């Protein structure tokens, strides 16, 4: 595991990087480029993070720029806010998205509202990184998808990349953004997903823009994070069955790319949203609501949602874990039914 983490691996890999390597590379490039960027969190120093995302950074940039914090998320975020107000660009790591809740008040009441409540006098250029998502035997508290809580909060931006290219490009944009950005990394994608990432060159991907992961004419499927890959796989199967499915990778869940969502549905007339979070009240509901409000004249069928079941979280035992996580099969089934509608 350690090997994968070091930036060495990043340098020697020729163009192709894993999702986690792309994130490591973005962190290192930005810390190299900008002295005001610091990293703080639990175990991010000597250990290099429980997933090794920050591996090697403390050796490179020292203990003042890579800080092992006490075990207290509210302080990680609250201190990052104060540091951001005084000129630093903190990248805070929450060890698992499931443990972001103790910092909820600092994120929602403070970071999100600082610019607004000071009428633009203050701003909080801060990134909060956290691994999320299931399928790694993490059970109830190491598998959660918590993005919906923050996608409801004006003042925050919420980014969830699905590819190494976007992971690096969006993390760079997040670090350079003058406002607080939550950056959720799918932990199952860390080593499973590989892809092209430009060497050396300084590129970034804009926050708030969706990406057409796969063009299609008969149906629009909206997803983000790991689900994008399952949706593309299902879409390819549908192609063989004679249905052309467009897969839109939202990439940012706040702000949602309304224009891209509406344009795709106006083209295809059918819409499906797939996500891993608890089905009710999630980001998928907002996507469906936008479509129901904006695309009525173009809709040829119900807006279908495939989400995680409405149970507290993903259980540990394999049969229940598999049952919880939406997969290619389940998405394919919904696509077939919607196509037949």
């Amino acid at each position, binding site marked *: 595991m350690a090997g994968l983490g070091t930036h060495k691996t990043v340098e020697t890999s020729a163009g192709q990087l894993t999702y986690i390597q792309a994130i490591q590379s973005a962190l290192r490039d930005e810390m190299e480029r900008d002295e005001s960027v610091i990293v703080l969190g639990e175990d991010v120093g000597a250990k290099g993070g429980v997933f090794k995302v920050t591996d090697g950074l403390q050796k490179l940039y020292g203990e003042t720029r890579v800080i092992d914090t006490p075990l207290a998320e509210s302080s990680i975020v*609250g201190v990052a806010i104060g540091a*951001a107000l005084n000129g630093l660009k903190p990248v805070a790591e929450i060890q698992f998205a499931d443990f972001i809740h103790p910092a909820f008040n600092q994120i929602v*009441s403070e970071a999100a509202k600082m*610019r607004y409540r*000071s009428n633009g006098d*203050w701003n909080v250029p801060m990134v909060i990184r956290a691994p999320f998502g299931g399928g790694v035997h993490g059970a109830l508290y190491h598998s959660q998808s918590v993005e919906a809580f923050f996608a409801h909060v004006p003042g925050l931006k919420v980014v969830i990349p699905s590819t190494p290219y976007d992971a690096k490009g969006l993390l760079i944009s997040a670090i350079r953004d003058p406002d607080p950005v939550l950056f959720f990394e799918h932990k199952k994608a860390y080593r499973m997903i590989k892809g092209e990432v430009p060497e050396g060159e300084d590129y970034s991907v804009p926050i708030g823009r969706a990406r057409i992961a796969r063009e299609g004419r008969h149906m629009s499927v909206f997803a983000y994070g790991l689900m994008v890959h399952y949706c593309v796989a299902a879409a390819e199967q549908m192609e063989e069955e004679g249905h052309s499915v467009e897969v839109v990778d939202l990439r940012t869940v706040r702000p949602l790319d309304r224009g891209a969502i509406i344009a795709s549905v106006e083209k295809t007339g059918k819409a499906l949203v797939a996500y891993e979070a608890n089905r009710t009240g999630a980001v998928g509901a907002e996507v469906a609501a936008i479509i129901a409000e904006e695309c009525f004249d173009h809709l040829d069928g119900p807006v279908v949602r495939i989400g995680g079941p409405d149970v507290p979280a993903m259980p540990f035992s394999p049969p229940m874990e598999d049952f919880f996580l939406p997969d290619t099969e389940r998405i394919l089934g919904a696509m077939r039914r919607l196509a037949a509608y």
Partner: protein
Amino acid sequence: MRVVKAEEAAQPSPQTQVEMYRVLLTARMTDERCWLLNRGGQAPFVISCQGQEGAQVGSVFALDRTQDWFAPYYRDLGVVMALGMTPEDILKSVMGRAGDPNSGGRQMPSHFSSRRLRIISQGSAVATQVLHAVGAALAARTRGESALAIAYVGEGGTSQGDFHEALNFASVHRLPVIFMVENNSYAISVPQNLQMAITDVADRASGYGMPGVVVDGQDVLEVYRVTREAADRARAGEGPTLIEAKTHRLTSHSSDDDQRVYREAGELEKEAKDDVIPRFRRQLLETGMIDDKQEKAMRSEIDAIIDAATEAAENAPYPEPEDTFLNVYSEGPPFPEDLGGGPRMREPE
């Protein structure tokens, strides 16, 4: 009450002491004006500094107002006035005018903010600002500056987890922070004995390996002295200090509260007798730093300033309704409904 040894160095000059008195008076008289406006229906909400100005003004004057960072809470009118806020700034905010420098009329009164003065914007959730002060100190230390940060919080606020996490983080990293607890022995109606099982909040300091100091908050010069000592420690890299200023809340919690419901009349009278303003005034008269005539002149000067400020605030415009949409993010809203957009009103075509 533990008191640290006196230091002549830590005595403000006569002229500074008179200046401190002027700020004390200005804060008090501005606050009194807010209550008048509240009764007159021009200010829906008032929350007071009255009784706590000594801890506020005494501490700010002991710090470096050209570089230090301040995270005050809603009682700290004395803090922000010592830093340069004017009665007009305050009255505009009490009346929700666009010109309110704290929030452009968005926040309740007494939610202070000014980037220029390094006053960190405060929300209403108590004790969150204590962590922001720690972060500001971390940033200053990272850049090798000699600036420090001070956080102000009530004794009730010390019950929040954030207070504990802030003291712990600051002490682990020996950051240049001063934690100033203004202990007025009530959190709205909740007395100190229902807030904590100890007499002195300062006793919490040893649990973080930092010095804890109890000071009489009604003694402006003592507050000045202990704050100066804490500042010297902080700048010398010796880490944070917890200061507890024993003080009094001379008004009800806010204009929505009536403390006679839950407090003894006797206690209220006793505290009123221990008011910092007459006490500091007496000190200045005794040491001859000011005489009766000068003091009266000062009061009428301030009165005139507050009258003018009141008129200016009354005549100042409200924000435009649409200003509601501004300053959610740095960039203008690319997606109106999502980035600070309005309720959707357009014709569904």
